[in-house]
């Protein structure tokens, strides 16, 4: 019974993450939003790299994970620049296109946690986590250091600087949600195929 629940959770986790990547590609392609990629061939080559089935090379597999995360993040980054509006009777709500992708990834992560319950922790996540934390600390330190100085000199509020921290937190969430999934060769190859198709279209459409 427990095994059945675990298998189901794994399948749902995989499907949700995959759906997130497919949704992001579809929104980018069909919403006619400008995609500022100057040389997409490099991204096509990087996507093809994800398809190589390495037998036992640990470093190459790790590097594939990093490339996979980079390509997915680029995709989400394209969506973050655009918003859609929901208009009610009296209020207008603006939501970033990237929000559904983040939401799907986080649900997939929660499902994955159920699937991985009782197993050892992902060593790759532990290794790179201090680097993410250091990046957060550096940004916070800079904001804290810079804002009073600039306010003293120019009298500006610089409240928008906080949005840099906000985007860092969002990508941190994406990292937490996707990093574990990228351990699985099937998932890497799946998003490799999707992204290769996506960047091929971008290359030929020259958007």
């Amino acid at each position, binding site marked *: 019974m427990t095994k059945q629940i675990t298998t189901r959770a794994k399948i749902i986790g995989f499907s949700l993450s995959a759906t997130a990547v497919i949704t992001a590609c579809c929104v980018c392609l069909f919403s006619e939003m400008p995609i500022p990629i100057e*040389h997409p061939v*490099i991204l096509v080559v990087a996507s093809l790299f994800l398809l190589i089935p390495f037998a036992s090379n640990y470093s190459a597999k790790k590097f594939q994970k990093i490339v996979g995360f980079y390509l997915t993040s680029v995709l989400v980054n394209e969506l973050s620049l655009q918003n859609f509006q929901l208009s009610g009777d009296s209020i207008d709500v603006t939501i970033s296109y990237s929000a559904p992708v983040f939401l799907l990834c986080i649900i997939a992560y929660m499902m994955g946690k159920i699937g991985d319950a009782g197993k050892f922790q992902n060593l790759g996540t532990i290794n*790179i986590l*201090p680097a*993410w934390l250091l990046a957060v600390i550096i940004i916070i330190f*800079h904001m804290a250091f810079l804002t009073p100085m600039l306010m003293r*000199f120019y009298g500006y509020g610089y409240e*928008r600087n906080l949005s840099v921290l906000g985007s860092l937190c969002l990508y941190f969430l994406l990292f937490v949600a996707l990093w574990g999934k990228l351990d699985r060769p099937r998932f890497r190859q799946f998003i490799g195929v999707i992204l290769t198709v996506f960047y091929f279209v971008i290359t030929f459409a020259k958007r």
Partner: protein
Amino acid sequence: MLEQTTALENNSSIMIISRSRTDWLYTAAIILSAIAIVSSAFHFWPFEQSNIWQALCPSNLALWVWSILLTGYCFLKRFKFVGIFSLPHLSVFAYLGVNILSVAFAPDLSRAVNFAIKLGLLLLGGFTLFSFAIRNIRSLNTIYASITLAAVISVSYCLVNRFALCSDKFGFFNSPYKYGTFIGTLAPLSSAYLFTGGKKWKILLGGAVVIGAFISSGSLGALASLVVGMSTLILILPEWSLKFLVSATMLCGIGILLLLNTSPAVSPLRNDIKPLEKDGLNLKQRYIEWQAEINILEARSITGTSAGCINQYRSNFYYRLPKLNTLKPFDQNGWLATSAETGLLGLVSLCWILTHYGKLAFCRLSNTMQKLNNTIYRFAAINLAGFTAMSAANIFSSVHYNGILIVFVLVLALISRTTWIFGEQQNADNQNY
């Protein structure tokens, strides 16, 4: 020391096998490393404006020659000897990968590709060169001697230039920021090596390097990195007499610097902390650059402006500033410049590199006994001082400046190889015990 070297060589079968096969390559690595380190002190002198010279100056040429030699040897031997030198950690490959992928977003392909090639040459070619050259304590001493020579040349020429010839130039470096980053990292490394050397002349030379570096520094970044590097050394040195000696030398250097900067004729440091708006050294320019880089980071969180292409975008991102900035752009914060060029993932990769090598340096120090006659502790302390100085220098300037990146790679290679050498030695000691 000789006994330690012999013990290390006797107990490391890998080293003996590899040495017999690659003796000439090892000699070439030592010579090329020394050339690369010492010639980095001359920066791009005497053809500063020539792009070809910037790519093929002696320090870069040494790396090109090494890369060609190693590639040829790898193909000849079918990669059978790869185990004798260490490749950089995965984080370095990740950083390089993010830089290469960011070329996809470059408005100027040639600029981005040139930057990525330079980064690859330094991070892979430079790291393998230094790691191949550092195989035992003797070669480690040779590398530190080269670092000391580079620091002495740089400091003495800068002092002559500024105080005898009354020039605006900082030795062989035109920019005070570049000079500050270079000497801010090398001076703590070389002085720590000399102070812990035990001989009187070494201590005197170490003192002269530190005081000279303080006096010749003309930017806040140089001062900060020197103070951070030397303070780290003071904190981790086990002997109180040496702690007092290093503290006294540092205070002496700061004191003379403050005295010299009371004169308006010799006061670049005063300009660096004044909210002036003019090219070169000034506080206002620094904050304008910082704000512009944060603005870029907000707009291009993941892709950045692409490797080496920040200047193509910078002028469009001076918004939210009181007026359009007309000053000559210059990266004044390595962390933010990396984030602006390669996005948050570039920043995370850089942090990953520093977390990994910082942890390695700190662990090596905390795992050894606190005695200065313990060679492991001595070299671990020197490396940690250099590492903290470099991290501090990156706040007020950038370790990625053309011609300075070699210092960053050198510190990483020193940490990595010191850990490897003494790891082998500790294993040998444990087996003997």
